[in-house]
C-alpha cells in the first residue's frame, strides 16, 4: 500500500474540530406543530409557541427525538439513560424568546466516532471522535441591509423552532482535506439514515470550524489561539476557508508569536468571493449564556429496549456497505466507494441490477458509466430514472448473449432512456435486428472475395487488418455484430488455407 505523504516538511500541525448543525427531517417543529417546509412566504409558519408569545409552552416532538437517537447510534455515540433541556440565553431579533432551548450538561448522546478515509490515499484513514450530538431549536432568519447598515433589519420567524441536531467533533482533523472528507462522510451517514436532507443551500446543514496550529518546537508543540470560522456555504468553501486560515494563522504566528491563551478566541467569517476570512463585525461582548434547565420541559429517559428497537431499524451505514460491496459482490475498493458515495438508492439500484443480470462487475460498470452519467446530464435522482434495474438487466443479458456489442447496447440504452422503452422496443425503433448467421456468413464471404489484400495480410499474421472488413460490414448492414463478423471472417480465412 502506498504511504500517505507525511507533512513532515511543515513546521506545524493543523488542528481542526467541526461543529455541524443538521436540520432533522420532521414534518413539524421541535416544540410546536408548525410546518417545517422550506420556502414558505415569510412569517406564515408560526404560532404562539414558536414566536414565543407570552404564555405559550413547548412540547417535545417525538419524531425529532427518535431521529436524534437514530443519528447518534449511526455515529457510534453513547446514549445516557436520561437527558434534559436547557435554556441558552442571548438577545437577537431572530430569537423571539430571548433564549434558545438546547442541551447543555446532559446531551442526549456523547463520545461517538466517524471513520474517514481517502480513496486517493492523500491521508491515512482515521477515526474522528464525536464529542457530543444534541438536540436544539433553530432561530429565525434576519435579513440585514449589508451595504449601508442603516436600514431596518427584517425578521422572518418561519424557521424558528425547527429541530437541529448539533454534532460536535473532537479536534481530530489535521488538514482541510480531512475536514472536507469528514463532512462528506457525515453527510452520507445522515442521508443513509434519512434523518436530514442535508441541503446546504436551504440551510439544513451548517458548518462552523474551530482551527488552530500546533507549532513544532523541537520535541514539543506550541498551540496557537483558536479561531472559529463561520459563514461557509459549501463543503468546498469549508475546505478553502481552512486552507486559507491555516496559512494565515502561520503568518500571524510568525509575526506575533501569540500562543493559545494570549488572545481570546476569535470568530472569523469566510468571504467566498474574496476567498479570505475576516473578523466578524460587531462588538465583542463576552458571551455569558446563563444556561439553566428549562422549567417548561421535562427530562427524557431512554430505555435499553427503546434503543434496541431503533438500532434494529437503523438504515445502512456507508462504511459497512462499502465493505459488503467488496466482500459480497466482489467489487474493488474504488468501485465500492464510488457507488456508496452516490447514496442508498443508487446502491440499491446497483444490487438489484447485479442480482438480475448475475454479473456484479458488469452491473457496476453500467451504473458508473452509463446510469450515473445520464443522471448527471439530466440532473435527476435515481428515483426518477426512467429505466428500472430489471429492464437494464434485460439489456445487459442480451449483450452478454452476444446479441449486441457494447457500443450498440449503449445506443439502445440511450434510446430506452429517451423514449421510456424496453430493450426490444428500442432495438426495433433503432432498426437493430438479429442478423441471420447464414446471411452474415454470405456477407463475410463476399467481403473476403473483394479484399484479397486484407486476406493476405491476415494470413501473414496481421490480425488487426480485419478491422477494415468489420467496418465495411457495418456499412452494408448496421445490425451486424462486429465481434461476430470478426470471428466469422477469421474462421473463413483459416478455412481457406
Amino acid at each position, binding site marked *: 500500500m502506498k504511504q500517505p505523504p507525511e507533512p513532515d516538511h511543515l513546521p506545524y500541525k493543523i488542528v481542526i474540530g467541526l461543529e455541524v448543525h443538521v436540520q432533522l427531517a420532521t414534518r413539524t417543529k421541535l416544540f410546536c406543530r408548525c410546518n417545517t417546509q422550506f420556502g414558505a412566504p415569510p412569517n406564515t409558519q408560526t404560532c404562539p409557541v414558536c414566536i414565543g408569545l407570552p404564555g405559550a409552552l413547548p412540547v417535545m416532538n417525538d419524531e425529532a*427525538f427518535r431521529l436524534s437517537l437514530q443519528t447518534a447510534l449511526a455515529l457510534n455515540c453513547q446514549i445516557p439513560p436520561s437527558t434534559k433541556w436547557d435554556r441558552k440565553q442571548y438577545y437577537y431579533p431572530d430569537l423571539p424568546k430571548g433564549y434558545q432551548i438546547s442541551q447543555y450538561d446532559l446531551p442526549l448522546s456523547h463520545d461517538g466516532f466517524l471513520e474517514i478515509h481517502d480513496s486517493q490515499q492523500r491521508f491515512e484513514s482515521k477515526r474522528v471522535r464525536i464529542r457530543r450530538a444534541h438536540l436544539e431549536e433553530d432561530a429565525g432568519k434576519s435579513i440585514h441591509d449589508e451595504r449601508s447598515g442603516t436600514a431596518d433589519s427584517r425578521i422572518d420567524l418561519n424557521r424558528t423552532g425547527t429541530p437541529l441536531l448539533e454534532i460536535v467533533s473532537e479536534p481530530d482533523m489535521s488538514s482541510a482535506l480531512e475536514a472536507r472528507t469528514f463532512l462528506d462522510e457525515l453527510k452520507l451517514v445522515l442521508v443513509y439514515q434519512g434523518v436530514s436532507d442535508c441541503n446546504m443551500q436551504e440551510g439544513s446543514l451548517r458548518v462552523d470550524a474551530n482551527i488552530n496550529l500546533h507549532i513544532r518546537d523541537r520535541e514539543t508543540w506550541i498551540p496557537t489561539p483558536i479561531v472559529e470560522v463561520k459563514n461557509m456555504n459549501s463543503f468546498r468553501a469549508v475546505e478553502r476557508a481552512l486552507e486559507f486560515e491555516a496559512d494565515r494563522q502561520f503568518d500571524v504566528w510568525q509575526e506575533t508569536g501569540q500562543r493559545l491563551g494570549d488572545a481570546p478566541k476569535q470568530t472569523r467569517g469566510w468571504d467566498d468571493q474574496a476567498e479570505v476570512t475576516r473578523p466578524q*463585525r460587531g462588538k465583542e461582548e463576552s458571551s455569558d449564556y446563563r444556561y439553566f434547565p428549562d422549567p417548561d420541559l421535562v427530562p427524557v429517559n431512554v430505555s435499553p429496549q427503546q434503543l434496541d428497537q431503533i438500532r434494529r431499524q437503523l438504515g445502512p451505514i456507508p462504511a459497512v456497505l462499502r465493505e459488503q460491496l467488496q466482500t459480497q459482490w466482489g467489487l474493488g475498493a474504488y468501485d465500492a466507494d464510488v457507488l456508496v458515495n452516490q447514496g442508498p438508492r443508487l446502491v440499491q439500484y446497483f444490487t438489484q441490477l447485479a442480482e438480475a443480470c448475475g454479473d456484479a462487475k458488469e452491473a457496476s460498470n453500467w451504473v458508473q458509466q452509463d446510469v450515473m452519467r445520464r443522471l448527471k446530464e439530466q440532473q435527476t435522482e435515481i428515483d426518477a430514472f426512467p429505466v428500472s434495474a430489471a429492464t437494464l438487466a434485460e439489456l445487459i443479458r442480451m449483450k452478454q448473449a452476444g446479441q449486441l456489442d457494447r457500443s450498440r447496447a449503449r445506443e439502445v440504452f440511450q434510446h430506452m432512456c429517451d423514449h421510456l422503452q424496453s430493450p426490444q422496443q428500442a432495438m426495433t425503433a433503432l432498426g437493430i435486428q438479429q442478423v441471420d448467421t447464414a446471411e452474415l456468413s454470405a456477407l463475410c464471404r463476399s467481403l473476403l472475395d473483394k479484399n484479397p489484400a486484407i486476406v493476405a495480410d491476415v494470413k501473414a499474421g496481421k490480425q488487426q487488418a480485419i478491422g477494415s472488413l468489420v467496418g465495411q460490414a457495418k456499412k452494408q448492414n448496421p445490425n451486424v455484430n462486429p465481434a461476430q463478423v470478426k470471428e466469422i471472417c477469421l474462421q473463413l480465412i483459416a478455412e481457406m488455407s
Partner: protein
Amino acid sequence: MSLTRQDVEKVALLARLRLAPSEVDTMTRQLSQIVDYVQLLSELNTDDVQPLAHAIEVTNVFAADQPLDSLSREEALSNAPHTDDEYYLVPPVLGS
C-alpha cells in the same frame, strides 16, 4: 456590599436594561441586601443533595409529529411594534 457598581452595570447589559446612574446606586444597594440575605443558604451542606428542578417529577412528555394550523401572517404580526406587513422590523443590527 456584596455587589459593586461594575457588577450591576455588567448585569444590566446582560439583562438588556438601561439604568440611569442613580438607579445603578439604588440597584447596587438593594441587590446587595438581597444577595446578603440569600447567603443564608450557604449554611447548609448540600453536597449529597440532588437539585430539584421540577416540583413534580414527570418524564417523557411528547407530542406526535403532526402539523396543526399556524397563525396567519396578519395574526402573527398583529402585536409587533414595527413591520412592513411581511417581516418584523428592527433597527439595524449591523451598526457601525
